[in-house]
């Protein structure tokens, strides 16, 4: 029953995406055509790469020769105190158009953000509307979440049907991984009595990061290829969850270690306490930056190698470039697994340090 609901959810999400389907856009501004004429714009590699790595309100598929873009325009959901809730397709804001007093900035400090603009054309730079849109990363995340849920609910369902017997099907693939997380990450760090409380979080974090990393490597079709874990807001949230769990499960011994570590002379305490407090913040902070930088760096490398073809503007570079891209993709595959493992391992380590077993 649950599997059916999930399959239904998946198709609903897919149908929503298709119905905001690929619109082919006519060239609206005829004034700029006369200016450019036939000059080919020089290929700007860094802008291309950074645009692909960053989040965006539309899913750009391709740009045809005559300048038309084929893209999937994702819904924009905005909330601001003055105007309330607004929901519309980002097609209305494409190419710098102004719709209902909103404008998508394309250059400058606020690039990529939606601002409110009143009739005189003055942009309110202090109060941007709250942007709850379903951007590329949100769709990618939801897709990965649905795939993960489907995998694990099937796993649970097959356990219910056949009991604890020899694994077959999806079990034989997922069970060793789950056992690996339990035996090599959870139990050594959290102790044998307390690890069960934290297993759901560790498993969720591991598989969420892994699935999103892997889907980010697949460029095509649309719900793949969204750079989710390379988005610093996503990794910030994951690190924040770890931070919250650490603080809420810290027992008295943990706080004693921070504020009055045993064996520290009193005159050293004013130095140790700020250091320990910074340590509380810096450990999840490092988790966040590590995951973000590894995944984003991998994407940037692959995109740069492909851009080589366009920078040199010759087809002869293509075999070399594609060979390097394949090699880098294998490395990226390793990094995907490794980063998920490291995030989970370090989370378990930090949580374990907060619930120390007494010697």
């Amino acid at each position: 029953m649950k599997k059916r609901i999930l399959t239904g959810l998946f198709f609903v999400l897919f149908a929503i995406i298709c119905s905001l389907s690929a619109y082919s856009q006519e060239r609206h501004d005829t004034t700029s055509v006369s200016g450019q004429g036939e000059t080919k714009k020089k290929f700007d590699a860094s802008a291309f790469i950074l645009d692909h790595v960053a989040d965006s309100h539309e899913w750009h598929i391709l740009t045809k020769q005559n300048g038309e873009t084929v893209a999937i325009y994702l819904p924009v959901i905005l909330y601001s105190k003055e105007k309330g809730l607004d929901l519309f397709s980002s097609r209305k804001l494409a190419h710098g158009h102004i719709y209902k007093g909103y404008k998508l900035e394309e250059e400058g400090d606020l690039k990529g953000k939606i601002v409110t603009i009143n009739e005189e054309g003055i942009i309110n730079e202090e109060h941007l509307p709250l942007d709850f849109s379903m951007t590329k990363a949100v769709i990618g995340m939801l897709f990965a979440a649905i795939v993960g849920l489907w995998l694990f609910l099937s796993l649970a369902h097959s356990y219910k049907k056949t009991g604890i017997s020899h694994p077959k099907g999806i079990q034989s693939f997922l069970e060793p991984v789950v056992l690996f997380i339990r035996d090599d990450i959870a139990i050594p760090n959290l102790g044998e009595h307390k690890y069960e409380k934290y297993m759901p979080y560790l498993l969720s974090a591991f598989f969420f990061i892994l699935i999103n990393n892997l889907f980010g490597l697949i460029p095509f079709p649309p719900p793949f290829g969204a750079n989710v874990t390379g988005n610093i807001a996503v990794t910030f949230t994951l690190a924040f969850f770890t931070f919250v769990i650490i603080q809420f499960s810290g027992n008295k011994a943990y706080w004693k270690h921070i504020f009055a570590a045993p064996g520290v002379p009193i005159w050293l305490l004013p130095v140790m306490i700020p250091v320990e407090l910074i340590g509380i913040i810096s450990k999840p902070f490092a988790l966040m930056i590590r995951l973000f930088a590894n995944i984003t760096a991998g994407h940037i490398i692959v995109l740069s190698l492909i851009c080589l073809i366009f920078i040199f503007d010759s087809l002869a570079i293509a075999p070399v470039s594609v060979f390097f891209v394949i090699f880098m993709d294998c490395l990226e595959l390793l990094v995907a697994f490794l980063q998920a493992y490291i995030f989970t391992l370090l989370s378990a380590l930090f949580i374990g340090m907060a619930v120390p077993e007494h010697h």
Partner: protein
Amino acid sequence: MEPISFAAVGAGLAVIGAGLGIGRIGGSAMDAIARQPEAYSKIQLAMIIAAALIEGAALFAIVIALIK
């Protein structure tokens, strides 16, 4: 000639640091495996984890270089 981009120089220095660190870890791992071939999988696991952590530190620097 374009002026020097210090961000790129900084990123290059960070990669030197990462390369040296991970090279040393790889070297020690090789020595350890040579001394005790049975412990190969444990040593390899520890080496990969240490390499990932060092690379995390180097990527801090690259992120700062990217921001500039």
